[in-house]
Each structure stands twice: as structure tokens, then as C-alpha cells.
């Protein structure tokens, strides 16, 4: 098997190439709609790219990305373990509220204590939100997608309710919580930001995202726990036959997913968010997490890059209005990217296009990807 790989093989086999092509198609389709709507393509895409030409812009992108990366990791982890964590939204909301409340209640604690405490409590609350769904599933057999959708909304209204409690509510007219305690803020000092020329909300949340990425990779690839969780995700019945406690695995997977969702919420509010508003509709970080996980094909490192990409689009997209281009262009681009990732299975068929005529029959032992022969 020393045959040199052809170009088509390369395209059909590399997931990375599929994603690059999908991103390219995304921008092409975006350009097409811009053209149809009579808007300037160069102005729109120029503004998008222009947003990352300065250090300030790059720091904005990184700041935007941190919560998306961690939310993406939460969903990616659930994908790896065979549950679909559509509930990341609720875990995110609960996590960010937990961080705010903790910081306000313990605002006198010094920074090195308060920050880890906020993270821990946010993760615990997120995990709890995941475990509730897990218990409903394992104990009463209730479909997790259904209960997660419900718990997203319960979290949403609970957060709105807590934000309205007098001890938590902003003293001003804003329909929001008080600002998070200074000692729980991840922001760099003002002097540092000014001297380096970063964006005003620059913070070290991205380091937590890196840590979360490494942790998820380690759990999934290097531990027995990760092996068991993956086995359950792959084939529940085989895993059970192999002696794995399936119910416990589902609970663990949802708890870890939920903890990551909660951490994402904490990062947002302890970083650039500062406080939580009383919303009229869900903010959508959890749903963004689904998209990030999909673009990153559920690989922790892929999710990290996808999160940066998403952060770039979100930050760049917020500047599109200056060119008279609707911000929603970003959703169209991202939607198209995800759509092409979904159908990227067709890229794999390129290989068959070329191979079929030259290989009429293959010995059974040589090829692994030839189920047709084995069947007969």
C-alpha cells in the first residue's frame, strides 16, 4: 500500500479540508445574498476582516471567543458520549447567574479565593442542571432533548427572577443585576490594557478555555472514565454487556457537560459581560455552543479553533451595521458553513468516483472500507 495519494483522495479523506471548503462555501453564499440584496460585498467582507487587523481587534475576538469555546466544549463532550446537550443554554444561564450571586455574597473575599470559588460554584450549578436531566432520563426514561428544552426555559425565567431580587438587582434604572464584584472580575488592570493597547474588556478568560480544552481532551482520550463514556455513546448495549454501568455513565457525562456549560457562563459574566440583564428572549450562547461543536467536529482542539472563528464572526459582525449591512449576514454565513459540514459526506464520495473503474475486485483481507464484498 505504498501508492501515492491523489488529490481527490486528499480532499475526500481530510476532515480539515472539508471544513475549510465549508467555510469557503459559507462566505460564497453570503456574498451571493449580499449581491442579490444590492449590498457591497467588498465593503461587508472588508469591514469583517478589518476588525482583526489591529491588536485591539484581535484582543476583542479572543475575549468574545472564550465563552463560545467552553460552551462548544460542553456540547462536543456530550456528542462524544452519545447525548445531545441541547441544554447548554440553560447550564450557561445558571452558571453565569451562580457566578454573579456568589461574587455579590462573598465580595469581601480576596481575588485569589473569590475567582476560583465563583468558577467552582458556577460549574457545580451547571453540573446540577445537567444531572437533573440525567436523573429524569435514567430514572423515568424521559427523553433528554425534551427535558433539556424545558430546563433551558426554566433556567431563563429563574435567572430573570433572581436578577429582580432587591439584593441582586442593579440600583440604577437598568433591568439587570448589579455588576459582578471587582474581586471576581477577570479583566486586566486598566493601566495594563492602556499600555499594551488591548480592548477595554481584555481578560484572561481564554486561559480557562485552554485549560478546559486540555481537560476535555485528557478525559476523553487518556482516562478509563473517558473510555467508558465513549463506549456508552458508541453502543449502549455493548457497553452494558462489557460491564459498564450505563446509567452512571450518562449521569457523569451530563454532569461534566453541564459543568462546562456553567463554566462558560461564568467566563462570560466575569469577563466582558459584568452583569446579567433581564432578557426578553434567550441569549443563545448554548445554541452557539452547538454550532461551535459542530464546526470543530467535536474534537477539543477543533472546537477551540471553531470558537475563535465564531468569536471573530460575532465581533466582526457587530461592526457590519457601519456599512449598512445587516448583522444577520453572519447567521447566514455560519448557517451555510454548518449546512456544508453536514453534507460534507459527499466529499468522501469523490474517492469512489475515481476508484471504481480501476479496481473491479479487491481481496477481502486487503481493504477495510469494502463492506459490499463482505456482505456476499
Amino acid at each position, binding site marked *: 500500500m505504498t501508492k501515492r495519494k491523489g488529490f481527490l483522495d486528499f480532499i475526500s479523506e481530510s476532515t480539515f479540508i472539508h471544513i475549510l471548503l465549508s467555510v469557503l462555501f459559507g462566505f460564497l453564499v453570503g456574498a451571493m445574498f449580499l449581491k442579490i440584496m444590492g449590498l457591497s460585498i467588498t465593503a461587508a467582507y472588508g469591514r469583517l476582516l478589518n476588525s482583526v487587523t489591529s491588536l485591539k481587534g484581535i484582543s476583542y475576538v479572543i475575549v468574545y471567543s472564550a465563552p463560545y469555546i467552553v460552551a462548544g466544549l460542553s456540547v462536543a463532550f456530550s456528542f462524544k458520549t452519545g447525548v445531545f446537550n*441541547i441544554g447548554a443554554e440553560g447550564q450557561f444561564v445558571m452558571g453565569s447567574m451562580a457566578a454573579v450571586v456568589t461574587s455579590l455574597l462573598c465580595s469581601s473575599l480576596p481575588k485569589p479565593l473569590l475567582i476560583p470559588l465563583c468558577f467552582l460554584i458556577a460549574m457545580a450549578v451547571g453540573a446540577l442542571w445537567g444531572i437533573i436531566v440525567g436523573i429524569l432520563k435514567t430514572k423515568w426514561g424521559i427523553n433528554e432533548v425534551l427535558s433539556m428544552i424545558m430546563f433551558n426555559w426554566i433556567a431563563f425565567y429563574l435567572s430573570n427572577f433572581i436578577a429582580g431580587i432587591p439584593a441582586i438587582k442593579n440600583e440604577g434604572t437598568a433591568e439587570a443585576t448589579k455588576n459582578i464584584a471587582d474581586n471576581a472580575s477577570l479583566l486586566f488592570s486598566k493601566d495594563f490594557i492602556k499600555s499594551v493597547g488591548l480592548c477595554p474588556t481584555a481578560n484572561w478568560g481564554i486561559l480557562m478555555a485552554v485549560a478546559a480544552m486540555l481537560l476535555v481532551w485528557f478525559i476523553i482520550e487518556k482516562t478509563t472514565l473517558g473510555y467508558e463514556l465513549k463506549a456508552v455513546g458508541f453502543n449502549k448495549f455493548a457497553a452494558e454487556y462489557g460491564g459498564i454501568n450505563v446509567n452512571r455513565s450518562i449521569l457523569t457525562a451530563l454532569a461534566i457537560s453541564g459543568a462546562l456549560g456553567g463554566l462558560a457562563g461564568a467566563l462570560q459574566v466575569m469577563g466582558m459581560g459584568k452583569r446579567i440583564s433581564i432578557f426578553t428572549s434567550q441569549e443563545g450562547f448554548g445554541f452557539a455552543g452547538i454550532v461551535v461543536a459542530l464546526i470543530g467536529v467535536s474534537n477539543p482542539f477543533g472546537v477551540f479553533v471553531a470558537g475563535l472563528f465564531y468569536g471573530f464572526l460575532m465581533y466582526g459582525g457587530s461592526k457590519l451595521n457601519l456599512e449598512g449591512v445587516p448583522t444577520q449576514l453572519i447567521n447566514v454565513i455560519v448557517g451555510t458553513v454548518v449546512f456544508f459540514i453536514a453534507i460534507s459526506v459527499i466529499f468522501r464520495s469523490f474517492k469512489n468516483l475515481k476508484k471504481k473503474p480501476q479496481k473491479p475486485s479487491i481481496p477481502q483481507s486487503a481493504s477495510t472500507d469494502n463492506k459490499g464484498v463482505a456482505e456476499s
Partner: protein
Amino acid sequence: MTNFWNSFGIILFATLIYTTPLLYAALGSCFSEVSGVVNIGIEGMMTAGAFTGTVVAHFTGNPWIGFLCGGLAGAFFGMLHALATVNLGADQTIAGTAINMLGPGLAIMTAKVLFDSTDTVPLTASQKMPKLFSGAFDTTTVFGRFMDNVFANYASTYLVFLAVLLVWFIFYKTRFGLRLRACGEHPQACETLGINVISMRFACVCISGFLAGLGGACVTMTVSTQFRPISIVGQGFIAIAAVIFGKFRPQGALIGCLLFGFCSGLKVVLGGSSGVNMHLISMIPYVVTVLALILFVGKSRVPSANGKPYIKSK
């Protein structure tokens, strides 16, 4: 007593208003899920329908053309979903997520270009969905007012209950329905009996988009008369939940949607009169759904081939 009947009438009116769009979308979801395709893109299809419905009604002046075009817009996204998942074997969750971004993205972007705002122009009285039996009851009496609240309702509401009957009939009394259900349970067996699984599923996902589009149009063409970016916020997911709640049967989805609609109706009345916090009251429909699942419904059996792409040669 007068007060009770008035409140009860308002609750029922609100129930019907909330239930109608959910029920259209839930029926759509039934078609797709039962034929074996997970359609998480219902939300995006509803948004497309909501936008197209109002825009077409605004420009043509005819609510029925608007309503129908809302359905067709949903069907278009349904077709995209079908193309990806049924023909190209794409992952159904991923494709659905893409639809959920594309639908609202395109709708709001078009709104911005057409109206220079993310909201559309509100429909006039003749452009919105007509109310049936309006003025048929004597609203000066308590009973008349109650009847007016409950029965003088939008035409789309009456249609959706007919649609439930129709879908039930299609599912359980026709050859098409039998084949549809078989496709979701064991597509390979269907194929051996000469049923074209690919075209069956393609059709079902398109129908699913059409119904979701109608549901979306109901949201923006009845009580609220304009499309706004927050017109469709999660109704699509609630509809999916109602279908799982109803064990993937149209009559079950009806109960799920009515339960949810009733709790939302309760919320409207309680929110206005009692001193309880509005946000806690808003939680009622979701909490009740979870409780109902635990107490009465229990395990829901998903069609066995649901979520798996069908590859003919396998």
C-alpha cells in the same frame, strides 16, 4: 361567578392562541420524525414562514395567500433539510442546526433590506387572519362573552384542529401513512417491499416544513400582526417537545400542545391579577410539562430508525 366565567373565557382564548402555531409545527414534526428524520430545524422553518406570511400578506393584501406562502417558505427549508439528510445522508442534527441559523438569518436580513428595519410593517385588519363567528354572540351577557372568547377565534385555529384529524387519518387509515410509519421503523424492510424510502422521507420532511411554516405564519398573522426578530423564540423547540411528549402520535401532540397552551393561557391571567412574580409564573408551562412527563407520560418510544440516515446499499 361572572368574574370566573370571564377569566375562564380569557384563559381558553389565550390557550387557543398559544396552541395553534405550536400544533401546526408539532404536526409537521410528527411527519418528519415518524418517517425517520430528526427535524430540529422546525424553529428555523417557523421563522421563515412567519416572515414570508406577513410580507406576502402585506404586499398582496390577502391573508390566505400570505398564509399559504408562509407554508411554502417553510417547505423550501424543509426541502433543503430533506436534500441534505435524505438524499446526501447528512447528520440530521447538524443539518437541522444549519436550518435554524439560515431561516432567521435570511428572514431578518431580507426584512432589513425591504423595510429598512428588522421588523416588518404591521398588517392592517383586512390583511391579517380573519376571525370566524366574530359578532355572532351577544357579548352583553356573561355566557355570550364566554362564547365569544372561546369560539370567535381565528380561522387558522379552526383549521389546525381539522388538520389534526386529517393527519391522524393519514397516519393510521391510509396506505401512505402505513408506509410512512414503516419507513421510520425499518426502512430496509420497506425497500424490500418496493417502497421508495428516499422519496417517502423526502416528501415527509417537505410536508413537515410546510406545516411548520404555517405555524410560523400563525404567530405573526393573528394577535401580533408583524414579524419581529423575537416573533419565533423557541416555539419550534416546544413543538418538538410536544411531539416527544405525545409519543410521536398526532393525537398525543395535540394533548401536549393543549397542555402547554393552557398553562401559557393561565400565565396570562395570573400574571395580570395575582401578586406573584411574573417570571415565576412564566415558568409554569415548562415545570408542568416536566411534572406531567414524570407522573403520567413516562418513557417515550422513539421510532426505531429515527435519526439514522438511510443508505440503500447497506
